[in-house]
């Protein structure tokens, strides 16, 4: 299934959707499928600052651990606390309820450097 075209993607398999100067970040459907059933999500707190390309948290399945890489820089204004109790939402609704953090964009032009949905799908298809 093609990735939703309303957002941008990183090669580390995160998605970003921008509303004003706030970017919401999650992991892609491909990423959640590769991980398997997510059982633990470790996220930073609101007020923390993330930098594009750097790890900001972790997502764990029964068998593996994956670091989450920030696709954009800025201050975290909101964290999806619901994932602490229902990490499986990352599998069930990766592009909706499985969102992870909201970042106040420090440099909105960073979003332009990310992949489009079509580019991301090509990237995944090439393995």
């Amino acid at each position, binding site marked *: 299934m093609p990735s939703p075209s309303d957002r941008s993607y990183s090669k580390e398999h995160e998605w970003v959707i921008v509303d004003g100067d706030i970017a919401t970040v999650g992991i892609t459907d491909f990423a959640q499928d590769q991980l*398997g*059933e997510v*059982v*633990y999500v*470790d996220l930073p707190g609101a007020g923390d600052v993330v930098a594009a390309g750097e790890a900001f948290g*972790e997502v*764990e*399945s*029964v*068998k593996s*651990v994956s670091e989450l890489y920030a696709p954009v820089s800025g201050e975290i204004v909101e964290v999806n606390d619901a994932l602490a109790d229902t990490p499986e939402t990352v599998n069930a609704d990766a592009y909706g309820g499985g969102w992870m953090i909201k970042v106040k964009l420090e440099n909105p032009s960073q979003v332009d450097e990310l992949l489009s949905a079509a580019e991301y799908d090509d990237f995944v298809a090439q393995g």
Partner: protein
Amino acid sequence: MSDNAAAGPLSRTPLYEEHLALGARMVPFAGFEMPVQYGGIIDEHRAVRTRAGVFDVSHMAEFRVFGFGSFDFLQHALTNDLSRISGLGQAQYTLLLDEHGGIVDDLIVYHSGDLEYLIVANASNRLSDLEHLRLQAPDDVELVDESERTALIAVQGPLALGVVSGLAGEGWMAPGRFSVAEALLDGAVPCLIARTGYTGEDGVEIFCRAADAPVVWRLLLSYPEVTPCGLGARDTLRLEMGYHLYGSDMDRSVDPISAGLGWVVGREKGEFVGRRAVERVRESGPERRLVFLLVEDGIARPGHSVLHGGIEVGKVASGTYSPTIESGIATAYVPARSATIGECFDIRIRSKTARATVVKPPFVTGSSLPVTST
């Protein structure tokens, strides 16, 4: 699972094509391409705890020992007291040690026939086990490696025995726990059915000809209550029960007492390989012991540091997520003086620290199997 390092090309079990057809995710394990999961580890785990799951464990090694000297040979080569399975069809868990008391492998021995035993061993230890056993085998004993011609399929869960009994036909008497019996599945496939397993649920392990494995596999999956399960669920199921995994929870550097397997070492048998070394540890007490840890707020993985009072005292041996209690569970070797139930440790999980408490296994109770204390 520390024996993932594959040297050379990977082997395939007779069920390789079946796994691909079911959409399994395949991984290298102990030199084989094995299914780690089909649908998902948690669903497979729960299927075994509530209904029945089927596992391809054909990578395991099988050795057959027969001849007049079989009993004396194995009684000397292995730790458990073989006279406790003098009855035909009985089985026992046992260890193969080196002269220094180090654990070469953990095994199940089945008293499969008159003057005959069947041994099931870990795939990764097949050659080292054979080497150890051959060096000791007397002239009046035959030791045959039957691993390649033999398939092994585990059917585990509260509904497992009903499924297998249905396939074995009317009049078939299911073997008792830790016993084995012949069966002709679906009136056509000769099998050996052992009431053993590695999940903590009731169930069986089916030995059959490698060529018959796909038929048996499909017969089992024709029952709607049976779910195909991979190595991922096998690991979470066994660790919930506190069962040891060779290569993670013990190896050649560890003696049975430190590993908490003293109950597998016969006290009333004669001489056996490693006996003096084990007795020394029994007398002086082990320096380190394997403990079972309930991990709060995090999932400890093998290799993570275990701290006590801020000082590193060991590493996580086995560590995963328990789908039943929805928490991290782990094992680790720690100094014996702090290896007591209720003792707290910290585990460094990458950038943070999680609290871990020593508990008495199993982590999960109330399974379809009467739990025996270790």
